């Protein structure tokens, strides 16, 4: 009886640890599969058929049809620059210098990855429709209340996320220190709650 109990307990614990650790590694990633750059995270092998099994599982589970990082980067932020969860109950400012890329796009999504509906019908800024400052930098206000300048409304209640898609042209630059993009990624600062 003691043996059977031990087998049962062992199986339960193994299922718990095995499944939970797999779910975490697939959902959030780890240092092995995800590169973290300030508030931004990227799965460097997104969409790559020869990528690691965690990345493959992550994208199959999410249903995203991502372009392989050979051609475009998809940076995702669920936290601000001080590592606090992005919440629709707070206001944020996204600041950064001009990005060296052929095209980029910054979009606000709800926690499930769908575009946040809003009355102002503003959902994203990209390289060609954003107002830059004189020094070439930009600032985007994320708020549920109307703001002057580059304003993206955040609506509803709860968590939200930002996705910065950067098309980097024909080359296949690595995301390392020599890549100028690393230093150009914007910061996300909480202004008020």
């Amino acid at each position: 009886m003691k043996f059977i109990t031990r087998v049962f307990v062992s199986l339960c614990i193994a299922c718990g640890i095995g499944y939970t650790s797999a779910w975490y590694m697939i959902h959030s990633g780890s240092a092995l599969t995800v590169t973290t750059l300030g508030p931004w995270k990227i799965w460097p092998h997104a969409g790559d058929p020869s990528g690691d099994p965690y990345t493959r599982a992550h994208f199959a589970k999410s249903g995203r049809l991502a372009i392989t990082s050979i051609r475009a980067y998809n940076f995702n932020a669920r936290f601000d620059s001080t590592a606090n969860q992005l919440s629709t109950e707070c206001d944020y400012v996204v600041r950064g210098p001009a990005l060296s890329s052929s095209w980029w796009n910054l979009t606000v999504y709800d926690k499930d990855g769908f575009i946040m509906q809003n009355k102002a019908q503003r959902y994203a800024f990209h390289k060609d429709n954003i107002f830059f400052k004189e020094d070439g930098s930009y600032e985007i206000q994320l708020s549920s209340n109307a703001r002057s300048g580059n304003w993206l409304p955040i609506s509803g209640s709860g968590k939200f996320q930002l996705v910065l898609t950067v098309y980097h042209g024909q080359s296949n630059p690595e995301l390392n220190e020599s890549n100028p993009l690393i230093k150009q990624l914007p910061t996300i600062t909480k202004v008020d709650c």
Partner: protein
Amino acid sequence: MKPHSIDVTNSVISPHHGNDTGSSYWAFLKKYFGKFFKWLRKDSNWKWVIVTLSLSGIIHILTVFSMPYFAPQSGWSRLQNFPLHQMQVIENALDTAHSIPMLAPNIKYAVCRFDVRSGPVSIVSDVPSDLFSIAAYDRLGQNFYVLFGSNLQRSKLNVILVQSSDLEDMQALAAESSEDVILVEATDSQGVVLLRAPISGRVYVQSTLETLQQATCARKQK
């Protein structure tokens, strides 16, 4: 000794040995698992810790590797309502009918589900800009092919997706053809082709949508 029984105590038993394969397997399992359980029965907690951790590792690996095959909301599953071999324009990324997450509102999309088992699939489209791209995904959402307008260096895109067994025939046909055809070997028999056309400004919306609406996705005769 019974006619089909095997003495497991002093014989070397291979699962691939003998005429009665079922009995051999059973004997093989009985021998090695029997020893394993005997070892485990001896009262020692560290053994249980090792066994539990090993099982956890196996379950972890099985979960990770099986996830793409059982994900109920993979890109392919989410587009089940879209017809095969028909280009469908997603005019508005806010429209949740397609239920593909993370579509950008500043990009116009056209989607085609394909199945190359019944023959090659041809995708033809004008190329409205350097940022325009075609991406082909297998059922698991792996992007096995991508091409940008800037790489194409021409205003017309003509891609043919083929399964590996049809590749040689199609290469011969393509060599004889005067058209600039790009042959792509599909890594999976089924999948999704996604055309992306980023919009630089509102003035380009209508013309980009018209370009995507004229794009075709059709099964090609071998």
